[in-house]
């Protein structure tokens, strides 16, 4: 038998709770057990409404003399009957009902990117994954090589990294557990890869910021370089982990990751801004790099010292500020 119309019971957010395919008329709705559709709503009468064709062939909903009556949704005018078309919403008792014809057009399906994203594609390409792991390990190895000018054994170098290993391991374990709690998979490989990539990126960006600081004589601005790299890496790492752990849509994951990293960087900034403690040493870490990085034009001696007028201003300002605050 063909469906004439579909009756949907909606909740307060207009989400469908249950759906009924009306295939023969008349169709009765009420609290009594003799109805075609029984609704357990104390404000609905045992025999509340009837759905049937009128003389002109319209599908009509009519009140069967109920206690609390029939209303169009969001309308306080009680009606005895109403025409039922696609989209017609009525209220009986505390229940909201909606009609839809079988020819009602629904939207195209949303594209599902939950399980298909850049990371999963990388994880699926074995050769790319291996290549990236090689890159990650190379970055760590090169950093260790350049960073140690005393002749150490491999064992000593590895032991120096032990603390870092432990932190990364605990980090990965945390995400694996979280992943298992939210979904039915652990995705160990993916979390390890994200953590490894994050670690290597930190090493790489930190090193990179040292070179920038050297080339452009930016030791004073090192904090901003630090904020920048931290912001980037934390966002990326959180995004990577969350894509596996969370069923939220990509936009939300991006927002969460950005939010987390912004708050971390804000905290760092706040700490630095508040800290104006006194020091007897020069807290300026000036970077020195091989001659190949000397690409910026150098000052002449007199130029350099001519520009120290700004320095004097700066110091004098601080001196007078120190005196005025007393």
């Amino acid at each position, binding site marked *: 038998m063909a469906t004439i119309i579909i009756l949907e019971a909606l909740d307060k957010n207009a989400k469908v709770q249950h759906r009924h395919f009306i295939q023969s008329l008349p169709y009765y709705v009420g609290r009594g057990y003799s109805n075609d559709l029984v609704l357990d709503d104390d404000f609905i009468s045992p025999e509340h409404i009837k759905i049937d064709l009128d003389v002109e062939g319209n599908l009509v909903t009519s009140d069967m003399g109920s206690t609390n009556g029939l209303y169009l949704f969001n309308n306080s005018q009680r009606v005895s009957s109403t025409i039922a078309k696609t989209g017609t919403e009525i209220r009986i008792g505390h229940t909201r009902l909606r009609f839809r014809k079988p020819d009602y057009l629904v939207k195209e399906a949303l594209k599902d990117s939950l399980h298909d994203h850049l990371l999963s594609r990388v994880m699926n390409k074995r050769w790319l994954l291996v290549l990236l792991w090689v890159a990650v390990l190379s970055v760590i190895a090169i950093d260790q090589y*350049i960073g140690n000018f005393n*002749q150490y054994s491999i064992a000593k170098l590895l032991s120096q990294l032990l603390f870092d290993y432990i932190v990364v391991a605990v980090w990965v374990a945390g995400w694996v557990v979280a992943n298992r709690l939210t979904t039915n998979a652990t995705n160990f490989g993916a979390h390890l890869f994200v953590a490894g990539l994050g670690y290597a990126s930190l090493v790489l960006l930190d090193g990179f910021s040292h070179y920038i600081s050297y080339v452009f004589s930016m030791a004073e601005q090192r904090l901003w370089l630090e904020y920048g790299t931290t912001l980037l890496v934390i966002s990326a790492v959180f995004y990577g982990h969350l894509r596996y752990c969370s069923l939220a849509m990509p936009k939300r994951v991006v927002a969460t990751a950005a939010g987390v990293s912004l708050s971390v960087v804000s905290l760092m900034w706040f700490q630095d801004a508040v800290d104006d403690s006194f020091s007897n040493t020069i807290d300026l870490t000036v970077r*020195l790099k091989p001659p190949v990085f000397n690409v910026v034009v150098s000052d002449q001696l007199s130029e350099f010292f001519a520009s*120290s007028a700004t320095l004097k201003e700066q110091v004098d300002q601080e001196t007078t500020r120190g005196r005025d605050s007393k």
Partner: protein
Amino acid sequence: MFVTRSGLILFVFFLTCFAGLQSVAAKEDSSRELFEQYKSLILQVKILYTASGKKSSIGTGFLVKQGGYIVTNYHVVADLLLKPQQYNAVYITESGKTGQLKVVSVDVVHDLALLKADLDNQAYFEFNPEPIQKGTEVYSLGNPRDLGFVILSGNHGGLVEPSLYEKIHFIGALEPGMSGGPSFTVDGKVVGVNVATAGNLLSFLVPSKHVVKMLEDARSLPQNLLVLAQQQLQANQSTYMSDFIRHPIKTTRLGRYRVPDKLSETFRCWGGDVLSKPKPYQIIEQSCESKDDIFLNEDHSTGTVSYKHLLISSDKLDAFKFYTLFEAKFSRLLMAVEGREEDVTNFSCQEKFVVNHGLHLKVVYCARGYKKFFGLYDVVLKAATVDQKKMGLQTALLLTGVSFQNAQQFAKKYLDSITWQQ
């Protein structure tokens, strides 16, 4: 008092028993006579915390004029001058009379202060500002370690030479607490003021000509003693800095570089290879510093010039590894700088590449200001050569308590004196 006096005799005996048995009796007699003669002209100076009344520091002072004018060391009364709300000064005479003291004038460079007590004295010490013969018997009065007044004898050891701030060697054992006391000849003429002790039988006196000058200058003084001290520090740095700026800087060889050598005889220099165990690199170090400084307070001395050079080279490390080493050494290349938050600001710096005499350098120039002596700065110049792959020179210069302009001129001259020899 009784205990003190017998202690004194024991002390004097102990001091003099090495000088030769024959003269012991005679010396003891003259010391005792001198002590009796001059004990009424010295007093103990005590700096007390105003809030608690507890003792902060002690020293000795001596009468130099009618009307209760007393000379002592600046370092004895420094706290009082810098934080007048927190401290006050009292005197105690040999006879036990006490009263408040007021600072009238200072000579911060020579560590002298002129105080005034409410004493109606007729007698006072006279001075002998003329140089006297080395080895002359000199007597020193004071209150060592708060044990009571003593006299001890020593010998005039002549001027400490060379030195930025003139001092007399006193061959005798001055003790802490005797600071500010007079050292005088047998006829009672003061030749110097006790100022510091550098260990057994090696002590220093401020020549009395500086006391005479302070007394003369005291007639036309600025109201604020901190301003006076600031003017003295300014004038002093200007004297020696303009001297350094005027004269060419003598250089010495360090590897293939020429670097500043001893600036003058008032500097002491040392250096050598730093190699504790076999390492893949070599470091040669040279350091110089001026011998004298000026006491401002317990935690802050000034008026010093010091510098250090490091020559670092390696034939085993590659360029990247070498520069990791070079960078690490550079960040630690700084001599300790004294001072507390209430004395100085934090350092501010500028950093640039500089090319000079074909040498490529990374140069950092930092300064901080004195909060109580406006117009004085501590300045640090650090430079590292960055044009060789496996060798480099680093240098650091620290000037304390100088004007910004003098620092800048000298730092420029200093850096300009560094050259590379093919």
